[in-house]
Protein backbone atom coordinates (compact mmCIF):
# COMPACT_ATOMS: atom_id res chain seq x y z
CA UNK A 1 0.00 0.00 0.00
CA UNK A 2 2.83 2.42 0.81
CA UNK A 3 4.47 1.89 -2.57
CA UNK A 4 1.17 2.47 -4.38
CA UNK A 5 0.56 5.62 -2.35
CA UNK A 6 4.04 6.99 -3.04
CA UNK A 7 3.56 6.25 -6.74
CA UNK A 8 0.25 8.17 -6.79
CA UNK A 9 1.81 11.18 -5.09
CA UNK A 10 4.70 11.07 -7.56
CA UNK A 11 2.25 10.94 -10.48
CA UNK A 12 0.60 14.11 -9.23
CA UNK A 13 3.94 15.86 -8.75
CA UNK A 14 5.36 14.97 -12.15
CA UNK A 15 2.75 16.64 -14.34
CA UNK A 16 1.59 20.22 -14.23
CA UNK A 17 -2.10 19.35 -14.29
CA UNK A 18 -2.87 19.65 -10.58
CA UNK A 19 -0.77 22.76 -10.02
CA UNK A 20 -2.38 24.33 -13.09
CA UNK A 21 -5.83 23.55 -11.75
CA UNK A 22 -4.89 25.11 -8.41
CA UNK A 23 -3.60 28.29 -10.05
CA UNK A 24 -6.74 28.47 -12.18
CA UNK A 25 -9.18 28.06 -9.30
CA UNK A 26 -7.41 30.57 -7.06
CA UNK A 27 -7.46 33.07 -9.93
CA UNK A 28 -11.16 32.46 -10.54
CA UNK A 29 -11.91 32.84 -6.82
CA UNK A 30 -10.13 36.20 -6.66
CA UNK A 31 -11.92 37.41 -9.80
CA UNK A 32 -15.31 36.25 -8.50
CA UNK A 33 -14.75 37.93 -5.14
CA UNK A 34 -13.85 41.14 -6.98
CA UNK A 35 -17.08 40.94 -8.99
CA UNK A 36 -19.10 40.50 -5.78
CA UNK A 37 -17.21 43.11 -3.73
CA UNK A 38 -17.34 45.81 -6.39
CA UNK A 39 -20.49 44.82 -8.24
CA UNK A 40 -23.09 44.24 -5.53
CA UNK A 41 -24.98 47.06 -3.84
CA UNK A 42 -23.78 48.05 -0.37
CA UNK A 43 -26.73 46.56 1.52
CA UNK A 44 -25.94 43.15 0.05
CA UNK A 45 -22.32 43.18 1.23
CA UNK A 46 -22.67 45.13 4.48
CA UNK A 47 -23.50 42.49 7.06
CA UNK A 48 -21.19 39.83 8.41
CA UNK A 49 -23.50 37.04 7.28
CA UNK A 50 -23.61 38.47 3.73
CA UNK A 51 -19.85 38.69 3.65
CA UNK A 52 -19.28 35.19 5.02
CA UNK A 53 -21.91 33.84 2.63
CA UNK A 54 -19.96 35.27 -0.32
CA UNK A 55 -16.67 33.83 0.94
CA UNK A 56 -18.29 30.40 1.29
CA UNK A 57 -20.22 30.47 -1.97
CA UNK A 58 -17.13 31.50 -3.91
CA UNK A 59 -14.19 30.02 -1.98
CA UNK A 60 -15.64 26.76 -0.71
CA UNK A 61 -17.83 26.03 -3.72
CA UNK A 62 -15.11 26.55 -6.34
CA UNK A 63 -12.47 24.81 -4.21
CA UNK A 64 -14.70 21.74 -3.83
CA UNK A 65 -15.58 21.75 -7.54
CA UNK A 66 -11.96 21.87 -8.70
CA UNK A 67 -10.92 19.30 -6.08
CA UNK A 68 -13.62 17.01 -7.47
CA UNK A 69 -12.24 17.52 -10.98
CA UNK A 70 -8.72 16.65 -9.79
CA UNK A 71 -10.13 13.56 -8.07
CA UNK A 72 -11.98 12.48 -11.21
CA UNK A 73 -8.94 13.04 -13.43
CA UNK A 74 -6.75 10.96 -11.12
CA UNK A 75 -8.70 8.01 -12.50
CA UNK A 76 -10.03 9.07 -15.89
CA UNK A 77 -6.69 10.60 -16.88
CA UNK A 78 -5.03 7.20 -16.51
CA UNK A 79 -7.59 5.65 -18.84
CA UNK A 80 -7.34 8.52 -21.28
CA UNK A 81 -3.56 8.28 -21.56
CA UNK A 82 -3.35 4.49 -21.19
CA UNK A 83 -1.15 4.74 -18.09
CA UNK A 84 -3.74 2.62 -16.27
CA UNK A 85 -2.07 -0.40 -17.93
CA UNK A 86 1.41 0.15 -16.44
CA UNK A 87 -0.28 1.18 -13.20
CA UNK A 88 -2.23 -2.10 -12.92
CA UNK A 89 0.74 -4.16 -14.14
CA UNK A 90 2.74 -2.75 -11.22
CA UNK A 91 -0.14 -2.96 -8.73
CA UNK A 92 -2.71 -5.51 -9.93
CA UNK A 93 -4.61 -5.17 -6.64
CA UNK A 94 -7.08 -2.65 -8.03
CA UNK A 95 -8.66 -1.79 -4.69
CA UNK A 96 -5.22 -0.83 -3.45
CA UNK A 97 -4.73 1.49 -6.44
CA UNK A 98 -8.09 3.13 -5.78
CA UNK A 99 -7.34 3.58 -2.07
CA UNK A 100 -3.93 5.08 -2.84
CA UNK A 101 -5.59 7.49 -5.25
CA UNK A 102 -8.25 8.28 -2.64
CA UNK A 103 -5.66 9.17 0.00
CA UNK A 104 -3.72 11.27 -2.49
CA UNK A 105 -6.67 13.31 -3.76
CA UNK A 106 -7.96 13.70 -0.21
CA UNK A 107 -4.71 15.48 0.64
CA UNK A 108 -4.82 17.55 -2.54
CA UNK A 109 -8.45 18.48 -1.80
CA UNK A 110 -7.47 19.72 1.66
CA UNK A 111 -4.93 22.03 0.07
CA UNK A 112 -7.36 23.22 -2.60
CA UNK A 113 -10.11 23.97 -0.09
CA UNK A 114 -7.82 25.77 2.35
CA UNK A 115 -6.26 27.89 -0.36
CA UNK A 116 -9.49 28.81 -2.15
CA UNK A 117 -11.34 29.78 1.04
CA UNK A 118 -8.21 31.57 2.30
CA UNK A 119 -7.91 33.43 -1.01
CA UNK A 120 -11.60 34.35 -0.88
CA UNK A 121 -11.21 35.76 2.64
CA UNK A 122 -8.02 37.70 1.90
CA UNK A 123 -9.28 39.07 -1.42
CA UNK A 124 -12.64 39.91 0.19
CA UNK A 125 -10.98 41.93 2.94
CA UNK A 126 -8.79 43.79 0.47
CA UNK A 127 -11.56 44.56 -2.05
CA UNK A 128 -14.17 45.50 0.57
CA UNK A 129 -11.53 47.68 2.23
CA UNK A 130 -10.97 49.48 -1.06
CA UNK A 131 -14.73 50.15 -1.13
CA UNK A 132 -14.60 51.31 2.51
CA UNK A 133 -16.91 48.53 3.66
CA UNK A 134 -16.21 47.23 7.17
CA UNK A 135 -15.81 43.43 7.33
CA UNK A 136 -17.79 41.91 10.21
CA UNK A 137 -16.68 38.29 9.80
CA UNK A 138 -15.33 36.92 13.10
CA UNK A 139 -12.13 35.02 13.75
CA UNK A 140 -14.19 31.91 14.53
CA UNK A 141 -15.97 32.27 11.18
CA UNK A 142 -12.65 32.40 9.37
CA UNK A 143 -11.36 29.29 11.13
CA UNK A 144 -14.48 27.34 10.18
CA UNK A 145 -14.41 28.77 6.64
CA UNK A 146 -10.87 27.58 5.97
CA UNK A 147 -10.91 24.34 7.98
CA UNK A 148 -14.42 23.38 6.84
CA UNK A 149 -13.66 24.47 3.27
CA UNK A 150 -10.56 22.26 3.30
CA UNK A 151 -12.48 19.28 4.65
CA UNK A 152 -15.32 19.83 2.16
CA UNK A 153 -12.95 19.98 -0.82
CA UNK A 154 -11.10 16.88 0.43
CA UNK A 155 -14.35 14.91 0.57
CA UNK A 156 -15.44 16.28 -2.81
CA UNK A 157 -12.12 15.14 -4.29
CA UNK A 158 -12.93 11.59 -3.16
CA UNK A 159 -16.46 11.91 -4.58
CA UNK A 160 -14.90 13.03 -7.88
CA UNK A 161 -12.52 10.05 -7.83
CA UNK A 162 -15.42 7.67 -7.26
CA UNK A 163 -17.37 9.30 -10.09
CA UNK A 164 -14.35 8.94 -12.36
CA UNK A 165 -13.93 5.27 -11.45
CA UNK A 166 -17.61 4.63 -12.20
CA UNK A 167 -17.98 6.67 -15.40
CA UNK A 168 -14.37 6.12 -16.63
CA UNK A 169 -14.64 8.47 -19.58
CA UNK A 170 -13.01 11.79 -18.76
CA UNK A 171 -15.19 14.30 -20.59
CA UNK A 172 -18.60 13.01 -19.40
CA UNK A 173 -17.26 12.77 -15.84
CA UNK A 174 -16.04 16.37 -15.83
CA UNK A 175 -19.15 17.69 -17.56
CA UNK A 176 -21.32 15.76 -15.10
CA UNK A 177 -19.53 17.21 -12.07
CA UNK A 178 -19.70 20.75 -13.49
CA UNK A 179 -23.40 20.44 -14.30
CA UNK A 180 -24.17 19.05 -10.85
CA UNK A 181 -22.26 21.65 -8.85
CA UNK A 182 -23.01 24.69 -10.97
CA UNK A 183 -26.60 24.02 -12.08
CA UNK A 184 -28.36 20.94 -10.78
CA UNK A 185 -27.97 21.73 -7.09
CA UNK A 186 -29.17 25.31 -7.58
CA UNK A 187 -32.29 24.04 -9.32
CA UNK A 188 -32.80 21.50 -6.54
CA UNK A 189 -32.41 24.20 -3.89
CA UNK A 190 -35.04 26.42 -5.45
CA UNK A 191 -37.49 23.63 -6.30
CA UNK A 192 -37.18 21.03 -3.50
CA UNK A 193 -35.31 22.69 -0.61
CA UNK A 194 -36.11 19.79 1.74
CA UNK A 195 -34.08 17.44 -0.42
CA UNK A 196 -31.45 20.02 -1.35
CA UNK A 197 -30.43 20.26 2.31
CA UNK A 198 -28.81 16.86 1.90
CA UNK A 199 -27.26 17.46 -1.52
CA UNK A 200 -23.46 17.23 -1.42
CA UNK A 201 -22.82 20.82 -2.48
CA UNK A 202 -25.14 22.17 0.21
CA UNK A 203 -23.54 19.93 2.82
CA UNK A 204 -20.12 21.24 1.79
CA UNK A 205 -21.36 24.80 2.35
CA UNK A 206 -22.67 23.85 5.78
CA UNK A 207 -19.29 22.36 6.59
CA UNK A 208 -17.64 25.72 5.83
CA UNK A 209 -20.09 27.57 8.10
CA UNK A 210 -23.15 28.39 5.99
CA UNK A 211 -26.41 28.29 7.94
CA UNK A 212 -29.18 29.08 5.46
CA UNK A 213 -30.86 26.27 3.53
CA UNK A 214 -28.57 23.65 5.00
CA UNK A 215 -28.49 21.08 7.76
CA UNK A 216 -28.04 22.46 11.24
CA UNK A 217 -24.35 22.15 11.99
CA UNK A 218 -20.99 21.82 10.23
CA UNK A 219 -20.49 18.47 12.02
CA UNK A 220 -23.65 17.01 10.50
CA UNK A 221 -22.59 18.39 7.14
CA UNK A 222 -19.20 16.72 7.48
CA UNK A 223 -20.73 13.41 8.48
CA UNK A 224 -23.25 13.19 5.66
CA UNK A 225 -20.77 14.46 3.06
CA UNK A 226 -18.29 11.82 4.25
CA UNK A 227 -21.01 9.21 3.69
CA UNK A 228 -21.33 10.39 0.08
CA UNK A 229 -17.56 10.06 -0.30
CA UNK A 230 -17.56 6.53 1.13
CA UNK A 231 -20.47 5.59 -1.13
CA UNK A 232 -18.72 6.98 -4.23
CA UNK A 233 -15.44 5.22 -3.52
CA UNK A 234 -17.27 2.05 -2.53
CA UNK A 235 -19.21 1.83 -5.80
CA UNK A 236 -16.01 2.82 -7.62
CA UNK A 237 -14.22 -0.05 -5.87
CA UNK A 238 -16.88 -2.58 -6.85
CA UNK A 239 -16.92 -1.64 -10.53
CA UNK A 240 -13.14 -1.23 -10.75
CA UNK A 241 -12.42 -4.68 -9.35
CA UNK A 242 -14.96 -6.29 -11.67
CA UNK A 243 -14.54 -4.59 -15.00
CA UNK A 244 -11.90 -5.32 -17.62
CA UNK A 245 -9.27 -2.82 -18.59
CA UNK A 246 -8.87 -3.12 -22.34
Amino acid at each position, binding site marked *: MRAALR*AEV*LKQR*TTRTTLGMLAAVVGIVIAAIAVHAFGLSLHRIGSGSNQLGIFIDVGENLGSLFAALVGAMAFTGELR*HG*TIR*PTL*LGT*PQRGRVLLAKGATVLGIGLGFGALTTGAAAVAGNIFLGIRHVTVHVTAGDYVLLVAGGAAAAALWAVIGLGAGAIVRNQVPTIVGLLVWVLFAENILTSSIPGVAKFAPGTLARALAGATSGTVATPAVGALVLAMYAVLAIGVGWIVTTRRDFA
Partner: protein
Amino acid sequence: MRGASDAPVVAVRGLTKRYGEVAAVDDLTFSLRPGTITGFLGPNGAGKTTTLRLLLGLAEPTAGQALVFGRRYGEIERPGRMVGAALESDDFHPGRSGRDHLRVLATASDIEPGRVETMLEVVGLSAAGGRHVRTYSLGMRQRLGLAGALIGDPELLVLDEPANGLDPAGVRWLRSVLQSFAEGGGTVLVSSHVLAEVAQTVERVVIIDQGRLVANAPLQEIADHGQSLEDAYLALTTGADW
Protein backbone atom coordinates in the same frame (compact mmCIF):
# COMPACT_ATOMS: atom_id res chain seq x y z
CA MET B 1 19.16 -18.16 -10.51
CA ARG B 2 16.95 -17.66 -13.50
CA GLY B 3 15.52 -20.72 -15.17
CA ALA B 4 16.45 -22.92 -12.25
CA SER B 5 13.17 -24.75 -12.56
CA ASP B 6 11.74 -26.22 -15.72
CA ALA B 7 8.17 -25.49 -14.70
CA PRO B 8 6.32 -23.40 -17.29
CA VAL B 9 6.78 -19.67 -16.90
CA VAL B 10 3.50 -19.10 -18.68
CA ALA B 11 0.72 -21.71 -18.65
CA VAL B 12 -2.40 -20.95 -20.67
CA ARG B 13 -5.08 -23.64 -20.41
CA GLY B 14 -8.43 -23.63 -22.16
CA LEU B 15 -8.35 -19.85 -22.12
CA THR B 16 -11.56 -18.34 -23.46
CA LYS B 17 -12.81 -14.78 -23.61
CA ARG B 18 -16.20 -14.01 -25.07
CA TYR B 19 -17.67 -10.62 -25.84
CA GLY B 20 -21.32 -11.46 -26.28
CA GLU B 21 -21.48 -14.05 -29.05
CA VAL B 22 -17.96 -13.43 -30.26
CA ALA B 23 -15.10 -15.47 -28.82
CA ALA B 24 -12.03 -13.25 -28.99
CA VAL B 25 -10.00 -16.07 -27.48
CA ASP B 26 -11.32 -19.60 -27.88
CA ASP B 27 -10.05 -22.51 -25.78
CA LEU B 28 -6.41 -21.52 -26.14
CA THR B 29 -3.73 -23.71 -24.59
CA PHE B 30 0.03 -23.24 -24.68
CA SER B 31 2.92 -22.87 -22.27
CA LEU B 32 6.35 -21.28 -22.26
CA ARG B 33 9.54 -22.80 -20.87
CA PRO B 34 12.18 -20.68 -19.15
CA GLY B 35 14.88 -19.09 -21.27
CA THR B 36 12.98 -19.18 -24.55
CA ILE B 37 11.87 -16.47 -26.96
CA THR B 38 8.45 -17.21 -28.38
CA GLY B 39 6.83 -15.30 -31.21
CA PHE B 40 3.08 -14.82 -30.78
CA LEU B 41 1.63 -14.46 -34.25
CA GLY B 42 -1.73 -14.09 -35.90
CA PRO B 43 -3.70 -11.78 -38.19
CA ASN B 44 -5.23 -8.56 -36.95
CA GLY B 45 -8.09 -9.38 -34.61
CA ALA B 46 -6.89 -12.93 -34.00
CA GLY B 47 -6.95 -12.37 -30.24
CA LYS B 48 -3.25 -11.79 -29.52
CA THR B 49 -3.72 -8.61 -27.57
CA THR B 50 -6.72 -10.02 -25.67
CA THR B 51 -4.67 -13.07 -24.71
CA LEU B 52 -1.84 -10.90 -23.38
CA ARG B 53 -4.30 -8.81 -21.34
CA LEU B 54 -5.88 -11.93 -19.86
CA LEU B 55 -2.41 -13.22 -19.02
CA LEU B 56 -1.54 -9.95 -17.26
CA GLY B 57 -4.74 -9.67 -15.25
CA LEU B 58 -6.15 -6.64 -17.06
CA ALA B 59 -9.17 -8.66 -18.15
CA GLU B 60 -10.94 -11.70 -16.69
CA PRO B 61 -11.28 -14.84 -18.80
CA THR B 62 -14.76 -16.23 -19.49
CA ALA B 63 -13.31 -19.71 -19.00
CA GLY B 64 -9.97 -21.39 -18.55
CA GLN B 65 -6.91 -19.80 -17.02
CA ALA B 66 -3.70 -18.01 -17.78
CA LEU B 67 -0.96 -18.39 -15.18
CA VAL B 68 2.45 -16.79 -14.84
CA PHE B 69 4.90 -18.62 -12.57
CA GLY B 70 2.03 -20.88 -11.57
CA ARG B 71 -0.19 -18.07 -10.30
CA ARG B 72 -2.75 -15.66 -11.61
CA TYR B 73 -1.07 -12.33 -12.29
CA GLY B 74 -3.22 -10.50 -9.77
CA GLU B 75 -2.08 -12.83 -7.00
CA ILE B 76 1.59 -11.91 -7.39
CA GLU B 77 2.84 -9.38 -4.87
CA ARG B 78 5.15 -6.88 -6.67
CA PRO B 79 4.68 -8.49 -10.12
CA GLY B 80 6.79 -5.75 -11.68
CA ARG B 81 9.87 -7.53 -10.37
CA MET B 82 8.97 -10.84 -12.04
CA VAL B 83 7.11 -9.83 -15.18
CA GLY B 84 7.88 -6.90 -17.46
CA ALA B 85 5.34 -5.91 -20.08
CA ALA B 86 4.87 -3.31 -22.79
CA LEU B 87 1.42 -3.55 -24.34
CA GLU B 88 0.87 -0.31 -26.21
CA SER B 89 3.37 2.07 -27.72
CA ASP B 90 1.74 5.07 -26.12
CA ASP B 91 0.86 4.30 -22.50
CA PHE B 92 2.41 7.51 -21.20
CA HIS B 93 1.17 10.81 -19.87
CA PRO B 94 2.21 13.27 -22.59
CA GLY B 95 3.10 15.93 -20.03
CA ARG B 96 5.36 13.69 -17.94
CA SER B 97 9.04 13.22 -18.75
CA GLY B 98 10.38 9.82 -19.73
CA ARG B 99 12.54 9.79 -16.62
CA ASP B 100 9.56 10.59 -14.36
CA HIS B 101 7.49 7.88 -16.07
CA LEU B 102 10.14 5.34 -15.07
CA ARG B 103 10.38 6.82 -11.57
CA VAL B 104 6.64 6.26 -11.10
CA LEU B 105 6.98 2.62 -12.22
CA ALA B 106 9.99 2.05 -9.97
CA THR B 107 8.21 3.61 -7.00
CA ALA B 108 5.08 1.51 -7.45
CA SER B 109 7.07 -1.74 -7.46
CA ASP B 110 9.63 -0.76 -4.80
CA ILE B 111 12.44 -0.93 -7.33
CA GLU B 112 15.77 0.66 -6.45
CA PRO B 113 15.70 4.26 -7.83
CA GLY B 114 19.11 3.88 -9.50
CA ARG B 115 17.48 1.55 -12.02
CA VAL B 116 15.81 4.54 -13.66
CA GLU B 117 19.08 6.00 -15.00
CA THR B 118 20.38 2.53 -15.85
CA MET B 119 17.33 1.79 -17.97
CA LEU B 120 17.42 5.19 -19.70
CA GLU B 121 21.00 4.36 -20.65
CA VAL B 122 20.13 0.84 -21.83
CA VAL B 123 17.46 2.16 -24.20
CA GLY B 124 19.46 5.20 -25.28
CA LEU B 125 17.19 7.85 -23.77
CA SER B 126 19.53 9.37 -21.17
CA ALA B 127 19.75 12.69 -23.02
CA ALA B 128 16.00 12.81 -23.74
CA GLY B 129 14.96 11.59 -20.27
CA GLY B 130 14.03 15.05 -19.04
CA ARG B 131 11.79 15.86 -21.99
CA HIS B 132 8.03 15.44 -21.95
CA VAL B 133 6.91 12.25 -23.67
CA ARG B 134 4.77 14.33 -26.06
CA THR B 135 8.02 15.34 -27.81
CA TYR B 136 9.10 11.71 -28.34
CA SER B 137 8.98 9.92 -31.68
CA LEU B 138 7.21 6.56 -31.94
CA GLY B 139 10.58 4.81 -31.82
CA MET B 140 11.53 6.67 -28.63
CA ARG B 141 8.20 5.71 -27.06
CA GLN B 142 8.83 2.06 -27.91
CA ARG B 143 12.23 2.33 -26.25
CA LEU B 144 10.71 3.95 -23.17
CA GLY B 145 8.07 1.22 -23.03
CA LEU B 146 10.81 -1.40 -23.16
CA ALA B 147 12.72 0.42 -20.42
CA GLY B 148 9.57 0.28 -18.29
CA ALA B 149 9.21 -3.44 -18.96
CA LEU B 150 12.83 -4.14 -18.02
CA ILE B 151 13.11 -1.84 -15.01
CA GLY B 152 12.17 -4.47 -12.44
CA ASP B 153 14.80 -6.92 -13.79
CA PRO B 154 12.00 -9.40 -14.57
CA GLU B 155 12.19 -13.06 -15.51
CA LEU B 156 9.40 -12.86 -18.08
CA LEU B 157 9.04 -10.21 -20.74
CA VAL B 158 5.69 -9.75 -22.54
CA LEU B 159 5.82 -7.39 -25.49
CA ASP B 160 3.03 -6.46 -27.90
CA GLU B 161 4.41 -5.33 -31.26
CA PRO B 162 7.61 -3.84 -29.86
CA ALA B 163 9.21 -3.37 -33.28
CA ASN B 164 6.52 -0.94 -34.53
CA GLY B 165 8.08 2.41 -35.27
CA LEU B 166 11.66 1.28 -34.78
CA ASP B 167 14.14 2.04 -37.56
CA PRO B 168 16.37 -0.80 -38.86
CA ALA B 169 19.06 0.02 -36.30
CA GLY B 170 16.39 0.03 -33.61
CA VAL B 171 15.09 -3.36 -34.71
CA ARG B 172 18.59 -4.80 -34.59
CA TRP B 173 19.08 -3.29 -31.15
CA LEU B 174 15.74 -4.74 -29.95
CA ARG B 175 16.83 -8.17 -31.19
CA SER B 176 20.09 -7.98 -29.25
CA VAL B 177 18.25 -6.89 -26.10
CA LEU B 178 15.82 -9.81 -26.34
CA GLN B 179 18.57 -12.30 -27.10
CA SER B 180 20.78 -11.24 -24.21
CA PHE B 181 17.70 -11.26 -21.95
CA ALA B 182 16.96 -14.88 -22.95
CA GLU B 183 20.63 -15.90 -22.66
CA GLY B 184 20.46 -14.74 -19.05
CA GLY B 185 17.63 -17.21 -18.49
CA GLY B 186 14.76 -14.82 -19.14
CA THR B 187 11.64 -15.84 -21.03
CA VAL B 188 10.14 -13.68 -23.77
CA LEU B 189 6.67 -13.69 -25.33
CA VAL B 190 6.61 -11.23 -28.18
CA SER B 191 3.72 -10.59 -30.55
CA SER B 192 4.60 -9.25 -33.94
CA HIS B 193 3.41 -8.76 -37.48
CA VAL B 194 6.91 -8.42 -38.86
CA LEU B 195 7.53 -12.05 -39.76
CA ALA B 196 11.03 -11.47 -41.12
CA GLU B 197 11.98 -9.90 -37.83
CA VAL B 198 10.36 -12.73 -35.86
CA ALA B 199 12.14 -15.36 -37.94
CA GLN B 200 15.49 -13.87 -36.92
CA THR B 201 14.76 -13.61 -33.22
CA VAL B 202 12.48 -16.29 -31.89
CA GLU B 203 12.97 -20.00 -31.29
CA ARG B 204 9.30 -20.94 -31.17
CA VAL B 205 6.11 -19.61 -32.62
CA VAL B 206 2.60 -19.74 -31.25
CA ILE B 207 0.20 -18.85 -34.04
CA ILE B 208 -3.48 -18.11 -33.42
CA ASP B 209 -6.32 -17.33 -35.77
CA GLN B 210 -9.84 -16.29 -34.77
CA GLY B 211 -8.93 -16.88 -31.16
CA ARG B 212 -7.84 -20.48 -31.71
CA LEU B 213 -4.42 -22.05 -31.63
CA VAL B 214 -3.29 -23.09 -35.12
CA ALA B 215 0.38 -23.80 -34.47
CA ASN B 216 2.75 -24.15 -31.53
CA ALA B 217 6.11 -25.32 -32.78
CA PRO B 218 9.82 -24.59 -32.80
CA LEU B 219 10.85 -22.47 -35.77
CA GLN B 220 13.19 -25.29 -36.74
CA GLU B 221 10.26 -27.65 -37.20
CA ILE B 222 8.67 -25.27 -39.67
CA ALA B 223 11.95 -25.04 -41.58
CA ASP B 224 12.11 -28.87 -41.61
CA HIS B 225 8.82 -28.87 -43.49
CA GLY B 226 10.68 -27.01 -46.18
CA GLN B 227 8.67 -23.86 -45.60
CA SER B 228 9.57 -20.34 -44.72
CA LEU B 229 7.82 -18.87 -41.69
CA GLU B 230 5.86 -16.63 -44.02
CA ASP B 231 4.61 -19.55 -46.13
CA ALA B 232 3.65 -21.53 -43.03
CA TYR B 233 1.97 -18.53 -41.43
CA LEU B 234 -0.10 -17.68 -44.50
CA ALA B 235 -1.06 -21.31 -45.01
CA LEU B 236 -2.20 -21.61 -41.41
CA THR B 237 -4.08 -18.36 -41.12
CA THR B 238 -5.80 -18.41 -44.50
CA GLY B 239 -7.11 -21.93 -44.12
CA ALA B 240 -4.87 -23.64 -46.68
CA ASP B 241 -3.21 -26.95 -45.80
CA TRP B 242 0.10 -26.93 -44.08
